[in-house]
């Protein structure tokens, strides 16, 4: 661990202000809660020159319901998400991901934008955001665009963001009444730890059949990943044990886990199946379906 050197902290008040500084200062980096960035600076001895604090920009914070969508600002903390009834009632998988993320202190400081832009394969908010069909609003001075979240991650700690771009917001479709989602993870203790595997699933129900399904996994490859092949197996079928097992098997085949200090690849593979089964059952119950 290296000492954190001095740096200029710039605290703009508007998104335009942030983007202007980013396009004019080459060495500028944005920071929100800092719960991932500060440890990284200290681990690798990186000496940032200019940090742009995003938490002073009011328009980047908050949770709003707007027509068909829920909008979330990137500096919204995990605690804010946990305290939001909209998130709790409509986005179960995201809420559950936030509830186990880090510690109380980290949830108080850490932000959803930071968790996503840090691009850890184990990010606990990522699977929930993926299965809820989240789009990211990305902006620079030159361009504004919408990107599905599963296209945002490139590799561990790498995203599609260009140096002058930031994430301005998250847009999540309000799930229909007959839907349900769930998140679970395996950690090495009950709290305050990184996931060995995490998983979120989302289902829409039509009677005993699955209308729509999404499955996302974390910490089993270089990025959080959506397992479309497994989703296809479920869609349009009657919800039962056999179909769950099939989906789990496809997930196990698709993922690319590695051995690391938190767990072995073999364990991750088998736990993927366990979590897919468990979250599908929970999500199905939440659609109102019997199982």
């Amino acid at each position, binding site marked *: *661990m*290296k*000492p954190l*050197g001095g740096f200029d902290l710039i605290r703009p008040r508007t998104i335009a202000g942030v983007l202007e500084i980013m396009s004019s200062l080459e060495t500028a980096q944005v920071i929100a809660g800092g719960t991932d960035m500060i*440890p990284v600076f200290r681990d690798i*001895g990186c000496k940032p020159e200019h940090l742009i604090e995003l938490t002073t920009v009011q328009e980047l914070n908050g949770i709003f319901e707007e027509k068909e969508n829920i909008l979330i600002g990137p500096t919204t903390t995990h605690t804010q998400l946990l305290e939001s009834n909209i998130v709790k009632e409509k986005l179960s998988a995201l809420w559950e991901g936030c509830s186990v993320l880090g*510690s109380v202190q980290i949830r108080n400081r850490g932000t959803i934008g930071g968790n996503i832009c840090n691009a850890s394969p184990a990010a606990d908010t990522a699977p929930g955001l993926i299965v809820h069909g989240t789009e990211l609003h990305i902006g620079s001075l030159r361009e504004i665009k919408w990107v599905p979240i599963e296209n945002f991650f490139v590799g561990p700690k790498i995203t599609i963001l260009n140096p002058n771009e930031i994430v301005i917001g998250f847009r999540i479709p309000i799930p229909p009444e007959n839907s349900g989602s769930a998140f679970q993870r*395996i950690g*090495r*203790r*009950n*709290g*305050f*730890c*990184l996931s*060995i595997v995490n998983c979120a699933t989302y289902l829409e129900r039509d009677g005993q059949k699955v209308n729509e399904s999404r499955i996302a996994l974390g910490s089993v490859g270089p990025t959080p990943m959506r397992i479309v092949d497994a989703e296809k197996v479920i869609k349009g079928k009657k919800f039962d044990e056999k179909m769950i097992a099939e989906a789990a098997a496809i997930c196990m085949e698709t993922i690319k886990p590695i051995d690391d*200090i*938190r*767990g*072995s690849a*073999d*364990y991750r593979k*088998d*736990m993927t199946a*366990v979590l897919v089964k468990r979250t599908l059952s929970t999500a199905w119950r939440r659609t109102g379906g019997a199982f």
Partner: protein
Amino acid sequence: MIPKGTAVLKILRSTQPHALIKRIDATPALSLPGVDAVLTAKDVPGENQIGYALPDQPFLNNVKVHYIGDPIAIVVARDESTAQDALDSIIVDYESLPAVFDVDDAIAPGAPLIHESENIAVKTIIRKGDAPKGFKKAKVIVEDTYWSPYQEHMYLEPDVAYAYPEGNHKVTIIASGQSPHLAREKVAIVLGWRLNDIKIVIPFTGGGFGKKDDTAPLCCAYAAFAAVKTGKPVALIYERPEILTATPKRFPARFKYKSGADKNGKLTAIEVDITLEVGAYSNRSPFWLWRQTAHAAGPYEVHNCWIDGRAVYTNKVYGGSFRGFGNLALHFAVEQQMDKLANELGIDPIEFRLKNCLRVGSKTTCDQLLDHSVGIDKCIEGVKNASGWVNKRKSVWNGTKVTGWGIGCGYHGNSTSRSTPDFAGANLIMNQDGTFHYRTGICEIGQGSPFGHVKIIAEIIGAKIDDINIEHPDTDAVVDSHPTHASRGLMMGGTAAADAAIKLRENLVKVAASMLECKPEEIDLRDSKAYIKKKPTQKIPFKDLADEMYARGISPAFHGFYAGPKRFFDPETGLGVNYSCYTFAATVAEVEIDTETGQVQLKKVWPAMDVGKAIDPLMIEGQIQGATSQGQGFALSEYLQVKNGVVLNPSMKDYLAPSAMDTPEYEDAILVEEPYNYSVFGAKGVGEPAIITIVPAICNAIYHATGIRTHELPITPDRFYKLYKEANQQ
């Protein structure tokens, strides 16, 4: 807060596990603005050899490095960033040597030598009775091998030392620690100074668990060395990765056990082979290994014990003091052996233990006769009843989860090993206003021992507890009281405090009797007042009593001193009196295992301990619960991963001690009081036994739930899942 004008000290550490140092070039560092000094072994004015038990550990290495993290040079600079830049710019040329990372490789013929002679630092032996003969009498014999890994102490407060020179031949060091006088001795060795040239002050310390017994003396010596060399106040603060990478851990150990019992369920013999991995330096290993050897039968009477131990060097981070000191790993093996024997014999594990446990009149592994203060039977009976053991003999399934119950017992010799003399001192001073200063060499490291001393003093002299101030240990103010370790803080320090209090009491009573015009035996001291027992309306507040004592020239201050009973042991046979008393403990644990994921949860704990005399029951609960958590971490989640000598997870993020959310439900501890004859009120040490008993209790509960034996720790979800899957495929 570091005072302004203090220089910052950082240590340059080896990046190689085993290498000769060809050249150290500090010129680039010295040319940086703000760098005060770069110091190496050549600059050490006194001795550069600071090995604890054996002379194998240089203070700074300039010839050879023995592990990744070995100290080579120290940098003193105006601030942390400058010190870091200086560290990064020092050039060290190494000539790599073949390194050894495994105990068997280290003792194989032709293994590279880590120090000058063989890679075995020390050996131990016990020959009590005739083990082969004992096994002939056995109906069942169980043999197994157990691996106990490294454990990091993970105290929250990192190691810190602040040193400032005074005049030209005095240095004061304020440090986080648990052994002020040992620190003073190390500083004296390194500086080549006398003991009274050095003052060590240990303020409230944010956790030690044994490690600061090893690290604080070195930190004090680095800081004092730098302060004396530069003439400036100097601060040293270890970084968390530095603590995890370079400072001592619980010694890893391997136990090969053979245990036999006859048809009546009586133990007949044990044969034990212990291989302790010491890492780069032997440090405390002779004492650690001896403790394991001397306790090898567990808290049971076994007439035939053959035990061999060896401590082996490797090019890895070295081991050192840690709560449980060898006995944790040992009982992890012993107590699973006991369960296996009980199982083979078809006897309930608790009944089997009761048949064999030590009692008054029993002899220990070392043939030491226990003539009093043996409460293990009451501990076992206590947890048996409290936990409803007889109704918990079948595991309980709930979906994919299964719950089981297990017992772990243990005993722990109080105070130092190998019959080393042990003593402690204390000062008690009464002020004119009737308040008191209490000075002890025992440190407050979160355990509350000095407060226990004060309760003892208050009881003896009848003072209000609030009237007694505890001073931070200061080597200029109190005699060598030995370290705050080995469960000795209250037993030794408290008995010294009692000695001072008894002496002061005599003077208080004498003066009070004269003032109240009665006989001394009629005086009662309580609530910081002296009373006539039969006429309690006649009283003198301590303030007036103190004034009178000062005026009459009757001493209001006393020094107390206590040395433990003499012990002896024969190094040829290992037999003798190793510890003057033992604390006994038993724990029942309830675990719940998710068989689909391999996650093991410690759900509930029923603890019992024979504490001699409970001076402060609440603090004993604190020690039991804290030690249980630390043992739970060792058993289930704490996994220091070392590959080719590199610690792969040197952070709180990846080395996982239990969190508050992992804490089990605790039943109130059952405190058995079998007083010890030679300590104040009969008190025995309580800091360590609970960490010893919880680990095998968890292992035995896992077996009870799943039928799976765990021979290697920690039992991570990943590991247990694999064991469970393999067992169920067969």
